[in-house]
Structure formats: C-alpha cells, structure tokens
C-alpha cells in the first residue's frame, strides 16, 4: 500500500483504511475490551496465525475462576494476545507465562479481585530471550521493548476480558501497583554469576522457560558505596524489613539484583543460597518496632498491639531461606549498583513453565 500514487494524489482506499483503523480502535474501547490503551483488532486470520504457533488445541481450557463462572481457552488467550500487540511467535511465551501463573495459589483464589491490586512479575529465561528480542539489560522493567511489554499486557487483558475481572467492578484494588500488567523481564543470564532463575523452578539452564509470581510492589536499593558483601546485603535487609509491608507473621520478598551487585556477592564466594541464608537471619524487626507501627505478630498473623508481650524479641521476616520465599533474579545493565526488592503477594509457587519450541523448528 502506498500513501501517494503516481499522480501525487492520496488514493481513497488508504484514507479509508486508516479511518477504519481509528474507528475499530474506538469500537473496542466502547465494548470495554481495553486496559485504557488502544488495542489491536483480533481477526480470525490473525488469531489463527497465533494458534499455529502451538500444538495445543484451541479449545483447551487453560484457566478458570469457578466462583466467577468464567474460563479462558487457548483461543481466547490468543485473541487477547493479538489485542495486546503481541507478534504470533510470542504466543508460546504468553501460554507458558499463563501456565506458570495458574500454578500460583493466589491466582486461582481471589488474588485478581484483591484490594492489594497485585500484578505478575514475569521472568523469561533461555535462548528465547534473544530469539524474540526480550530485554534483559538496561531499563529491564520497561517500557520500550515490544516482547516484554506485550506479553505482560496480554496477561492483563486475559484477566480483564476472559476472566471478567474489571477494575471498579469485580476488581477492587485500593490503589494497585505501579507497573501493573507491564512487568515482564528477561534474566540477564550472560552477566549473572549464578545459575538461571528457571533452575530454581525446575527447568534446566539453556531451556526456554517462564516463571511468574504476583507482586505488591517493587523498591530500589541504590548502593554504589561499598565493595563489602555484608555491608551491601545490610542495605537490602533494611529495605526488605520495613514494617509497612508486614501483614502476616512471615512475608515473601525477592531481589532482582543488577549484574554489579550480583557479581560483587559472587566474587566474595556467595551463591544464591548463601545470600538467602544471610538475609533470612538478618531480615526482620524487634517486636518493639512493629509495636510502634501498631502491629503485633499473633497466631500467624498481624494484629493490633495489646499486651506487653508484643514488644521485645526479634521477629524474622522470612519463614525460611527457600527460593519460594526469597526468589533471586539477575537483570538490568552493568552500569550501576541499582537493584530492586520485589514484594511477593503470597509466595512464589517455585515452578517454571517450559516454553513450547517453534513448531517449524525455525526462527519462531
């Protein structure tokens, strides 16, 4: 299609096509099918292209919320992935991300409806990162990269459209979290000193896999001030241990280390397990600190402060040092000591989902 014909006139069909594109975008807004940004119209032909990237049948049910009487099939996921702006070859990643999410306890309960307004952190490992152009380095939390942005968005549209969890109606987030439906990162395996995150989820290094968990927020730790691993980890322990995020006896939280911090720790001989063990022992607060915030750990929960018993001993934040409660990921550029603490909504299921390889054996 050319914008200008040989006579220098704009052909009518071009104008009409653009007019139709604009009108179709407005039509989808009117139907309530968008997350607030324009979506791509899903046609039979385009959805079939997506379905051709997977061996799974179009009518396979891949998730349901029985209490809302809603379910999502492979085909419905494809429709929403088209709308999110995915390319067809991203679809196996969307499906794997969805599978991983469905393994999370909170996503099949009331998590999507929660006042805490959680959103998935999606982590991609393996050669698929390069094959499809997933960003794992600078500005990894986005935006700017189609694969990262549209895979995360597709998940959000599936929850909204297929599961029917719409804001202000069945979705009751008080504020929601920044970056909601936008957090898909690839791990920077090339500059990580440790084994890939997917290994913690049971998939071998070098295989394409997606891991997900729901987050409540993320908070940076900027430390370009020390080369002492314990001083550095103390900075993380402080952020991890804040009282505001404390609402059960224990919490789960992860760290997305930048390459510089990860390499500093590894150079000191620390594995991911060593880092977790160090943090397990030091993350937490004296009961008095919690009491000053009106909180007390009681019977596995956080209640109001009532007795003198509620002040005194040190309360540990983490229940244990497992990757489920303290996932560690490496991503970002190797240009500064800036990492991210991520607040896990409940705990990570500890399961990575394999991404189906391209059916044609080609680029995919």
């Amino acid at each position, binding site marked *: 299609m050319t914008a200008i014909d040989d006579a220098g006139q704009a052909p009518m069909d071009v104008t009409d096509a653009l007019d139709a594109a604009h009108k179709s975008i407005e039509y*989808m807004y009117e139907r309530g*099918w968008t997350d607030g940004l324009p979506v791509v*119209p899903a046609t039979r032909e385009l959805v079939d292209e997506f379905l051709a990237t997977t061996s799974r049948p179009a009518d396979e049910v891949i998730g349901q919320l029985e*209490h809302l*009487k809603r379910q999502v099939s492979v085909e419905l996921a494809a429709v929403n992935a088209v709308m999110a702006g995915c390319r067809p070859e991203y679809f196996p990643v969307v499906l794997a991300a969805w599978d991983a999410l469905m393994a999370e306890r909170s996503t099949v309960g*009331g998590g999507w*409806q*929660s006042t805490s307004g959680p959103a998935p952190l999606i982590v991609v490992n393996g050669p698929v990162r390069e094959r499809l152009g997933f960003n794992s380095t600078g500005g990894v939390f986005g935006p700017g990269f189609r694969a990262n942005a549209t895979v995360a968005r597709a998940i959000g549209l599936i929850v909204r459209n297929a599961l029917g969890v719409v804001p202000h*109606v*069945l979705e009751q987030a008080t504020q929601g979290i920044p970056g909601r439906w936008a957090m898909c990162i690839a791990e920077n395996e090339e500059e990580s000193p440790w084994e890939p995150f997917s290994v913690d989820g049971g998939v071998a290094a070098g295989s394409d896999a997606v891991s997900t968990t729901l987050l409540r927020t993320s908070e940076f730790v900027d430390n370009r001030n020390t080369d002492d691993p314990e001083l550095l980890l103390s900075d993380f322990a402080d952020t991890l241990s804040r009282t505001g995020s404390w609402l059960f006896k224990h919490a789960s939280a992860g760290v997305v280390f930048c390459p510089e911090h990860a390499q500093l720790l590894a150079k000191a001989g620390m594995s991911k397990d060593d880092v977790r063990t160090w943090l397990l022992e030091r993350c937490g607060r004296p009961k008095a600190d919690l009491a000053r915030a009106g909180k007390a750990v009681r019977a596995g929960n956080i209640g109001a402060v009532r007795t003198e018993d509620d002040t005194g001993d040190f309360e540990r934040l983490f229940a244990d040092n497992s990757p489920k409660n303290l996932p560690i990921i490496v991503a970002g550029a190797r240009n500064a000591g800036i990492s991210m603490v991520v607040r896990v909504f409940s705990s990570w299921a500890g399961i990575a989902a394999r991404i189906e390889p391209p059916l044609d054996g080609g680029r995919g």
Partner: protein
Amino acid sequence: MFDRILDPTGLSAGTATVATSAGRVPTLVGTRVGLLSNTKKNAAQMLTEIGRLLESRYGAVVTIQRTKPNVAWPVDEPMLNEIKAVSDVVVAGVGDCGSCSASAAADGIAFERAGLPTAVICSDAFEVTARAMAEVHGDKDFEFLLTPHPVAVLTEAQVAQRAEDLAAVVAGRLCEAAR
C-alpha cells in the same frame, strides 16, 4: 464493518437473571439461625453479636456458626448442607474485601436457592463488587445489607455497636413480620 473483530470475553448472550428468594419465615420466635463468617477480621465477632441479639430480642435460636475455608470462594456444598440441616435462616458476612464481598453475595444467593432466607452483610465500600457478583450468580437484584466501611479496624465495643445497628434490618430481611 466490525463483525470481523473477535470478542475477547468468551461470553455469549448475557445470563438471564432468575429471582431466587426463599419465602421469609413467619416469625423469628424459635427460628433456627445459622451464622456463616468468612475469615475477615471482626466478621465472626459481628455475626456472633448479631446472633445474640436475634436470640434476646426476637426469640430466635443460633444453632450453628461456621467459617468458610476460603475467603474468596462461595460456600461449598458440604458446608451449605451442614448449615441447612440445622437452620431456618442464615446470616452471612462480613464482606470487607475485594473477593470476599463478592463471594458473600454468592453465598446469600446459594442459601436462598436452598430455601433459606439469608441476610448478607457487606461493607458499603464493596457494594459495587457484591452487586456484580450477584449478577454473575444469576440474581442481580439480590438484596444485601450494608454496614459503613471500615470494619477490620473496629474495637470490640464498636463491633457490638455495629451489630446493634444492624440487628433490626437483619431481622427484617429474614422475617417480614419483624419489619
């Protein structure tokens, strides 16, 4: 011209709404009351207080109090049957979060369909989501009772006061003669 754009919701035609109310009990005197709480903070206490007032003021008898195993999901069949076996009316709640307010509305509809007049209590901050859930479960006009938000931070005395404020409307919801 937009016929070719595929619908991403998977919904066909809208679900028909079917009125499902049970008949109200003629009197609360001697009426057996089942209480169903949902794990939210202060919910069980508030229902206990309401039950106490239904006994002392209206002559009802609380026969069972249960707590749902999952805050987000509607009451399951075994628990519904357990409560139904020993109750003539049900008081359920307190809807005080995104998923539990919705499921409280579904609980009420389930009990009404099982033939038990039910008073569902929700925090007024969650009215819209409870209404949406009622529609999902086929009874968009289902009547639930509202209490001012917040509920979770109330002290024991404040919970008792809320129960006091609600007792008459709960009674009226279960028994027309009590209105």
